[in-house]
């Protein structure tokens, strides 16, 4: 049963601390996406990779957020330093990189981040 996995599922931290979220995409998928879910904006795209290369991180606050893919089985999203406004659910998704309406992205269960 191929699934995207994310760790941790929940994270509570204090303002100023570093937060690292991890994602294991589905084996064989060549695109990986990081989203943030907020009430006002819905699902915002933060960054995405194709074949481990970053293609677009325009949705990410560059001064504090960073996203990497050290290898094909791991994607990370790091926030340093964290702020209360970063509290949200962060989703990772992966896909086969097919265009058009077959561009289905498979989502992980999310990491719920609370910054106090």
């Amino acid at each position, binding site marked *: 049963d191929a699934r*995207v996995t994310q760790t941790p599922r929940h994270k509570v931290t204090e303002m100023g601390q570093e937060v690292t979220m991890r994602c294991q995409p589905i084996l064989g998928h060549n695109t990986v*996406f990081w989203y943030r879910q907020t009430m006002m904006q819905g699902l915002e795209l933060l960054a995405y990779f*194709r074949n481990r290369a970053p293609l677009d991180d325009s949705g990410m606050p560059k001064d504090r957020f960073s996203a990497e893919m050290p290898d094909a089985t791991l994607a990370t999203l790091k926030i340093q330093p964290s702020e209360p406004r970063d509290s949200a659910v962060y989703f990772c998704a992966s896909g086969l990189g097919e*265009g058009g*309406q077959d561009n289905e*992205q498979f989502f992980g269960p999310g990491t719920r981040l609370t910054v106090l």
Partner: protein
Amino acid sequence: DQQVKQNSPSLSVQEGRISILNCDYTNSMFDYFLWYKKYPAEGPTFLISISSIKDKNEDGRFTVFLNKSAKHLSLHIVPSQPGDSAVYFCAAGSIFGNEKLTFGTGTRLTIIP
């Protein structure tokens, strides 16, 4: 600038009746659209999609309608079932945008038994 809009944050429908969820977009470069369904504490899952060359796509109880001139699409669920209670996200993409999807803010659908 919200390029994909779901103006109804919530919708309640009686079990067995039709649920209609709406989505509007502003970017005429979008040429395919997807609907995702999300249960609490889970990630969104793909439901149905449509290409801009079509105006309708049907899959069982789910039908998506696309009106390109109005930049509007809708998801019809009939008959609605209690298990359909979830948040529904509309998403749009462009073949020129690589694999990027732009999502709406979601509509919470509640099916009343």
